[in-house]
């Protein structure tokens, strides 16, 4: 009977394991394997050599690109967190009826019914040299000449990131906030806490797991992105994703794989560090 049970257990676990092995584990293993291969200008060949890593880790460009990627991730994180927390806080604590909470929450998700790329590209006519933003500012007399830094700059990249990814902050934070017992807020008021004190000593500490999950989403998405940086910077800025994409364009798969492995490792290390600070298990 026991033997039978364990067979059934393995069978039940098999489909998902199979999917994960085929679509997650194998590709990563493949990338790791290829990252040790060699390449010439016209060919790639199986090998086990550290040339790709050596080249990457000794190149100045790698560090600058990684630094730039971190910069994007950090600034995007700050803005998505501020906006996301505020929106979630408003929804969770200031909207009284559940119907309105759900309605407004769904409203937040409506932009996500269109594709990422369309939402991103729609910024271009808005921010361009003769775009809506510039022409409005000029006609209002705020500026005399079009602002050059609105589009194809770090500003536009981060604006697009924040626009694309804030919802990934709102959802987990809202979810955690909805689980906070409202009587805790009253208990804080009973203890003489002001609104800010309640926020700082009760709500923020209790929302940490949600903030952490949102952070993982945003950081992972920004670190792995290449298309936003390409479109919104007009190919003038680089991040790790762009570096990998360039290598692929040049058919330098071993080099691209090595970069991907380093990126994967970096992101895992980052998330691992974050998880040491906050226990998110009870949120899952």
């Amino acid at each position, binding site marked *: 009977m026991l033997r039978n049970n364990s067979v059934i257990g393995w069978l039940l676990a098999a489909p998902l394991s199979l999917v994960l092995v085929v679509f997650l584990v194998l590709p990563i293993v493949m990338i790791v394997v290829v990252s040790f291969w060699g390449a010439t200008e016209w060919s790639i060949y199986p090998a086990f050599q550290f040339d790709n890593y050596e080249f990457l880790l000794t190149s100045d460009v790698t560090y600058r690109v990684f630094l730039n990627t971190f910069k994007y991730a950090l600034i995007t994180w700050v803005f998505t967190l501020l906006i996301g927390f505020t929106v979630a806080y408003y929804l969770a604590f200031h909207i009284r009826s559940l119907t309105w909470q759900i309605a407004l929450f769904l409203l937040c998700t409506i932009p996500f019914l269109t594709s990422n790329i369309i939402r991103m590209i729609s910024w271009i006519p808005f921010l361009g040299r003769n775009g809506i933003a510039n022409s409005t500012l000029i006609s209002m007399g705020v500026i005399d000449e079009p602002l050059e830094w609105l589009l194809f700059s770090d500003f536009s990249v981060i604006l697009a990131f924040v626009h694309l990814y804030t919802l990934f902050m709102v959802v987990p934070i809202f979810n955690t906030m909805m689980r906070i*017992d409202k*009587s805790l807020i*009253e*208990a*804080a*008021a*009973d*203890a*003489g*806490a002001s609104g800010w004190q309640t926020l700082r000593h009760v709500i923020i500490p209790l929302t940490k797991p949600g903030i952490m999950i949102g952070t993982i989403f945003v950081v992972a998405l920004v670190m792995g992105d290449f298309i936003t940086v390409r479109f919104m910077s007009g190919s003038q800025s680089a991040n790790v994703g762009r570096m990998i994409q360039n290598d692929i364009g040049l058919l330098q798969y071993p080099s691209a794989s090595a970069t991907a492995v380093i990126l994967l490792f970096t992101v895992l290390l980052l998330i691992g560090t974050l998880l040491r600070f906050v226990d998110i298990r009870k949120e899952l």
Partner: protein
Amino acid sequence: MGQKLDLELISLTKRYGSTVAVDSIGYHFSAGTYACLLGPSGCGKSSTLRMIAGHESVSDGSITLGGRDISDLPPAKRGTAMMFQNYALFPHLNVRDNVAFSLKMQGIDTAKRHARANEMLELVDMTALADRLPAQLSGGQQQRAALARALITKPDVLLLDEPLSALDPFLRIRMRAELKKLQRELGITFVHVTHGQDEALALADEIVVMNNAVIEQAGNTRTVFDAPRTAFVARFLGSHNVVSMPEGMLAVRSDALKITNPNGAKLPGTITNIEYQGTHVALTAAVPGEQEVTALLSDKDFFGNPKELGEAIGLDWEAEAARALAQ
């Protein structure tokens, strides 16, 4: 604490839209009283307590403490403290920090507030568990932590919202004894909301029975129990039979009923149920007018003269044991 301030409700009213949750009630709680607000759910007792605490706005009327109108003050400025139904302990703080929370909000330094918190924890016998998180405590321990947290602000009035409802029956009886003991030691007013009459009778010096947003009857616990004024109060406090007699509605205590011959008794009846309760036997009989009455007999009385189901009996009582009820 120690100032002995009376708490008074004056035409206190709470409206939610067009619904009246509390309808112009008035009551005077003398300083140092253990008072219970008793009533079925939805009777307005919790709204009343929450208005006193300052977690619910007052629609009309006022609340005074020691003659000072506190109706519009924020909760922490009233001289009241509340113990919540589910205790509302901050899950991310250990017991000591929970207790010291209000001192932290006042900006008192760590050493001082921990010392004060430790004193409070000693009072409720929780010193050993000061470093635990609320999730690591049993229901009774959580309640003690919540008590310590409420008392650290030295309130004149402690408000308790169904404090025992989350506990199992055994613990409930133990904790209620502790609540009573603590109230006697501190000498401050406790206002305790409950829907359990046994809890109210066991604890309260004064009892305020509420129904449909108004106070049905209030006063000294024994006075209320001995002389219920309305059928609702008699039924809600239990141990009373409400019978409709030719001379009007009467409340007769179950233990005041005597079993006699059907002839010449005040009420003839037929036994419909006999329930053995250890020290007592509860005997239920159907009486004219499609009513039921329950007589509580001592086991000696019952088994000295046992009765059978379906037997015709008479029910009798001393004239002074019956209370006429208002219609």
